[in-house]
């Protein structure tokens, strides 16, 4: 009787796993279907040019100043036009090979939190001032990876920009300065 019960449970388990497999395949297909109909959903791109061309984006701000020790080109590029426009570029430190600089431009205010792989978790200092006639917010503190980091945010032409550097704010200010056109 007990053996019969165990056998029933195991055969049920096999059937259940088969049904779950079908359900997962169905969900994966449902996740892929929208991309067939429309373009512009979030995905990784090989180059900035590729993202610009595919998503027909005119302006992707790239820092003109690039601190020593950071690797070019970006190690990771994420871009989307839907549900809102956003481009994320990550740059790695040549020595540590860790992500050191993140540049985000987004059309949705407050979305940078969802687009940053590294976040400023302990905000020690915060100051708002004008940089090349733009109001910028500079935050300095610790990142959630335990490193010291600084972040600058500003708005320009309906887009929200965030630059995060796992270093002191001095280099960050120079990076941001090279991105803002007066």
């Amino acid at each position, binding site marked *: 009787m007990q053996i019969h019960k165990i056998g029933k449970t195991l055969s049920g388990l096999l059937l259940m796993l088969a049904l779950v497999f079908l359900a997962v395949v169905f969900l994966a297909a449902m996740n892929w279907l929208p991309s067939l109909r429309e373009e512009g959903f979030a995905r990784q791109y090989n180059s900035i040019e590729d993202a610009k061309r595919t998503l027909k984006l005119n302006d992707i701000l790239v820092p003109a100043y690039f601190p020593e020790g950071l690797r070019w080109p970006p190690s990771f590029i994420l871009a989307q036009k839907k549900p*809102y426009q956003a481009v994320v570029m990550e740059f790695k430190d040549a020595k540590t090979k860790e992500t050191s600089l993140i540049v985000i431009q987004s059309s949705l205010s407050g979305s940078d939190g969802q687009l940053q792989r590294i976040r400023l978790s302990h905000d020690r200092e915060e100051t708002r001032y004008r940089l090349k006639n733009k109001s910028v917010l500079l935050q300095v503190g610790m990142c959630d990876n335990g490193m010291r980091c600084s972040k600058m945010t500003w708005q320009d032409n309906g887009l929200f920009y965030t630059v995060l550097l796992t270093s002191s704010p001095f280099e960050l200010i120079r990076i941001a300065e090279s991105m803002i056109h007066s």
Partner: protein
Amino acid sequence: MNTFISSYWGMYAVQTMLHSIVASVLVDCAFIAWNIGTPCLKQRFRFLVILLPVVSFPLYQALYPRRGDAYFRLESLLDSNKWFSLELWHGVPLFMGFVVILALSALIFIIQEFLPMFLHMREQMREASEPLDDAVEQVLAQKVSQALEGLPFDEQFVEIVVDEDLSLFSDTGLNPRIYVSTGLIKTLTIEQLQAAFAHEIGHIQRTRRPVLIFAYILRVLMFYNPIAMLEFRKLAQEEEKVCDDIAISLTGNPAALSSAVEMFRPDPEDLIQSPDAKKTGGIASTIEHYNHDLLLKSRILSIGEPRQDDCHWGASYFVTLAIIVVINFFIV
């Protein structure tokens, strides 16, 4: 739209609905896989569909706060943002369809559940102030007394209501009572009446473990979720079958219960839509009668069925729970 679906509560609303759908499908898969037919076991599984979506999103977020991030969405099994930003026509996103579904579900909840409950409570309060008609024939009281013989319920807690319609319900509060109409006492035989009382005793006994009340509270919290509404209805239907099982165990007479339930089926005339039904709002009434009849038919079929499983917490339950929790984690 973007601000809403990126917000905590926006993600909560979207994910409770998606998680409900997935949980509902997986629970039905479990019924097929393990051939689950026992009402009280089915009820436990269905309860998962109502409970898990309410708590899953905050739990997932607490365990992995970066679940809403773009990077997590890239690797997810299903990203709802993709579907919601699809343009249907003239640039209107599919998200608007989702909003309409939520609004309709909330409206159905208010019209079909909240208002009738409120009106019923008001009616009960009004009735309580009216003097009760105690002109009950001695014959009917004696029939009730005979029907209650052998059942674990005191005769003094049975109230006879002067009403020629077939009506039987119980007050499952602190002082439980069974209300039976004179029409029902006259129509049913003593065996049928005993089976019907035993069914109500089942309801009273089960309020000691108020799963249905808890499920209803969760369902009210998800007033906007159509899946929660459907699952709660299925849960309530299973409750009737559980009480049927209790009635059979108390009376040992499934045939009497089956024939008593048969008496409650609506007249065939009520199931046919009259030509002027549209004018009188009869479509809704016909659908309601049809649904009620379906439930009663399903109960009658279930009464005769032998139960294959015991009502226990088996491996199948925990496997299904784990599968739902894992899959829903990757649905954002």
